[in-house]
């Protein structure tokens, strides 16, 4: 988290969970970044990251992804895993920032 703060990188998570569920998750895990609610998956859909009927009860949810956006709003790096257990490690994101946007 410190490495991200030092570089002025903001982190935000997005899921279809309600604000109430995101609050529970954030407080349980001690997240210091925003966990945003996209209950109808509108933003998820706009990013092309919909996993139709991927939820436990057949809801539309997001596929896992990490996206790095620079100060002009341009996507500079992304990680579209093909395995939901295997997410980007913080070091990978920092490396992507350092090599594309700079220290």
């Amino acid at each position, binding site marked *: 988290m410190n490495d991200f703060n030092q*570089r*002025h*990188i*903001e*982190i*935000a*998570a*997005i*899921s*279809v*969970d309600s*604000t*109430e*569920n*995101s*609050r529970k*998750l954030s407080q349980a895990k001690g997240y210091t970044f*925003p*966990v*945003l*609610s*996209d209950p109808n998956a509108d*933003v*998820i859909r*706009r*990013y*092309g*990251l*919909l*996993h*139709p009927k*991927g*939820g436990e009860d057949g809801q539309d*949810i*997001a*596929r*896992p*992804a*990490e*996206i*790095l*956006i*620079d*100060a*002009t*709003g*341009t*996507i*500079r*790096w*992304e990680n579209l895993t*093909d*395995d*939901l*257990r*295997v*997410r980007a490690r913080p070091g990978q*994101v920092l490396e992507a*920032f350092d090599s594309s*946007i700079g220290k």
Partner: protein
Amino acid sequence: MKRRHNILLWAGFVLVLLAVGTYIPIFAVYAATRDVPWVNYLLFAAGGVLLVLGLRRAFGQPKLYRGKVLGSILAGLSVLLFALFCFVIFYISKAIPASETAVRVGQSAPDFTLANWDGKQVSLSDAVQNNRAVVLIFYRGYW
């Protein structure tokens, strides 16, 4: 003469149970043991070796050791548990749609405003303006 308990069978089965049970609460938490669950594979392997040794002496020295029936049941259960583990790791875990539709590097990120769990509205354009970069993490949700 009373036949001896075949402790290897139980020890092997306990290792197999540990191999299944420790992944989510312990080893999936750390990327180094999560992406390739090698610790759990090792536990399965060790459990398998003990079960094979236990079965060998149950069937090879039946007058000395117990465990022909019980050992076969435990070994069968262990094979099932290993198969289940592999099914989750190699199939369930990869059951996500292809990424062809996703936004691409070089495109501009679609702006949005969404509510944080504390009720505050967060917009991408603000976040982008106030930082050098923004990392969006998309979660599947439904914890």
